[in-house]
């Protein structure tokens, strides 16, 4: 087991390295001089030269990458071109907000998905099943940014129950009513994605488990209800946890659309700003942090899953 853990870790390192490489070089794939974003077009030559040195653009690419990587390992991701603030502090502030949003959405979505999926699997082929499956298809097919707009229209504009934008108040996140009210709509919107996927997964697993001979044997022995539920839960839980864990990562990376709709001050929002302002350091830094979180999450899931479900344990 330890061997598996170490091997998995070793395997994740080159991937993480590759991620840093892609994060760094992605900003340079566009045609055009990156300097154009930083300096105004009519700046005198010596200003351009000094800017070049400041941002290290006078060195060759591999050197720039190495320098950036080394600094990043020390927690220094450079300074944002637009705001001048440290990229690391901006990103870390935003990451917290996105994590809250993603976790809330994942929690709601996974729970709902489990309930719906279990009902659908248990009452297989009944109207409950069809209803839950329909909801699942909707969850996977709906453009969630549109759903966010619709929910805003209904709950914020028409009914005025919930706020339309922002995270509530400025500065740090606190778990008070104001902040939570701001969390409801974005989390609900984002939750449909995991809901759709988990419903389908759970439904299939529950239906499959209930068909197993083990269950028939239990019923034949006169045990029903709870014993069967426990058996089903034990079979389904590892996969749900794995998929759910991956979903959190996916939501963290993919929250940009919902954050844009609700002006949620998270990493997606930050990324949006960075792209449009061509703020290279901010772009690289945000990308790096988000992807490393995703890689770390994948690693955690890969390691925890075989521990929970021996069948999944690979050599």
């Amino acid at each position, binding site marked *: 087991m*330890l*061997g*598996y853990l*170490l*091997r998995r870790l070793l395997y994740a390192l080159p991937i993480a390295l590759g991620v840093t490489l892609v994060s760094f070089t992605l900003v340079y794939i566009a045609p055009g001089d990156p300097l154009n974003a930083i300096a105004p077009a009519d700046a005198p030559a010596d200003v351009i030269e000094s800017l070049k040195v400041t941002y290290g653009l006078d060195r060759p690419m591999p050197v720039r990458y190495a320098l950036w990587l080394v600094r990043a390992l020390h927690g220094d991701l450079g300074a944002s071109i637009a705001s001048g603030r440290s990229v690391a502090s901006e990103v870390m502030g935003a990451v917290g907000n996105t994590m809250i949003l993603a976790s809330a959405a994942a929690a709601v979505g996974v729970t709902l998905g489990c309930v719906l999926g279990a009902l659908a699997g248990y009452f297989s082929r009944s109207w409950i099943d069809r209803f839950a499956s329909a909801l699942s298809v909707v969850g996977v097919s709906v453009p969630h940014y549109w759903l966010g707009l619709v929910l805003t229209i209904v709950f914020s504009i028409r009914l005025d129950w919930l706020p339309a934008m922002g995270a509530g108040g400025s500065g740090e996140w606190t778990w008070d009513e104001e902040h939570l009210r701001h969390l409801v709509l974005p989390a609900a919107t984002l939750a449909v994605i995991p809901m759709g996927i988990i419903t389908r997964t759970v439904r299939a697993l529950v239906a499959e488990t209930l068909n197993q001979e083990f269950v028939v044997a239990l019923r034949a022995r006169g045990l029903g209800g709870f014993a069967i539920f426990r058996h089903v839960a034990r079979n389904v839980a590892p996969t749900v946890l794995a998929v759910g864990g991956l979903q959190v990562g996916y939501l963290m990376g993919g929250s940009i659309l919902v954050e844009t709709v609700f002006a949620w001050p998270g990493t997606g929002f930050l990324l949006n700003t960075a792209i449009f302002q061509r703020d290279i350091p901010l772009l690289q830094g945000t990308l790096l942090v988000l992807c490393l979180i995703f890689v770390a999450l994948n690693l955690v899931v890969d390691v925890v899953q075989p521990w929970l479900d021996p069948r999944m344990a690979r050599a």
Partner: protein
Amino acid sequence: MSTDAALAAPADRGGPAQPLLRVSGLKKRFTVRGGGIFAAKLTLRAVDDVAFEIAKGETLAMVGESGCGKSTTARLIARLIEPDAGELVFDGEAVGRFGGMALKEFRRNLQMVFQDSFASLNPRLSLLDAVAYGPRMHGLSDTAARARAGALLDRVGLAPAQFGARYPHELSGGQRQRVNIARALAFEPRLVILDEAVAALDKSVQAQVLNLLQELKAERGLTYLFISHDLQVVRYLADRVLVMYLGRVVEIGPVERLYGAARHPYTQALLLAVPSMNPARRTERSPLSGDPPNPIDPPSGCRFRDRCSHAAEVCALVEPVLRESAPAHWAACHLDDPSSGHPEARTE
């Protein structure tokens, strides 16, 4: 139109005394990852210095437990896997060597029928297409290939008008094996390797397919290498038998001699394990003790010694070599060798 000129039956080159296939020094090692994270690469000697001959027109059976290397040997001969060492001489010509027989030509002379009849057929090709594929690859025109395929399907008992357009999943296991046989024959090979070809079939179907194989052999002058673990079938079909254990040949001999008076303890044990209708031959104790040892780490000296009831000191020290102890009967055992130093060795 001489459509068959491109795929004419290959001619006999060496004459009747020349063995059809001579295998020598065949070796194949697989590297396997061991346990633990700093995995040492371990070597699995799947085939370890195997040598034998197959005479023209005979059926040589290869028997042994699972994992003894029979299938690997077959695949090495067929060049589906590359051997680490070893030489193949087909009808007097070295295969794959400069000045000898080219691989593509060798492939025409040698065909194989596999155990899994379903996995042997491309599920997307109709039966006729499947059988016609090979001849087409060798230059036959479409029509000619189809015609030959149809004739072959007919010969194996599947009327082409009825079966030609069908797909593998529509047939039973026995029918599929017949298609596989037809496909193998489409090249007019001289040697056919049957790798557990009837093992997956029901007994009654087995009998039909075996009879078909016998007929085809007589009709077309084929030579068979029949790999099996079923000793009763082997007795029915084979002229000579080769026994393998852990990648080595332990005994070769004519079938009746082997079944009547086997020289190697392993062969004796295998034969004892065959259920018999004769109540006098009831076995009580299992003739073979222990599990087959790990092929990665075989015992020193004779590989069979830790399961052999006759094991002695010399067996752990010296590995026995194949000796011809009777005409055309070879065995690799110290018991059989008067000069080996084994206390129970035969006296000449």
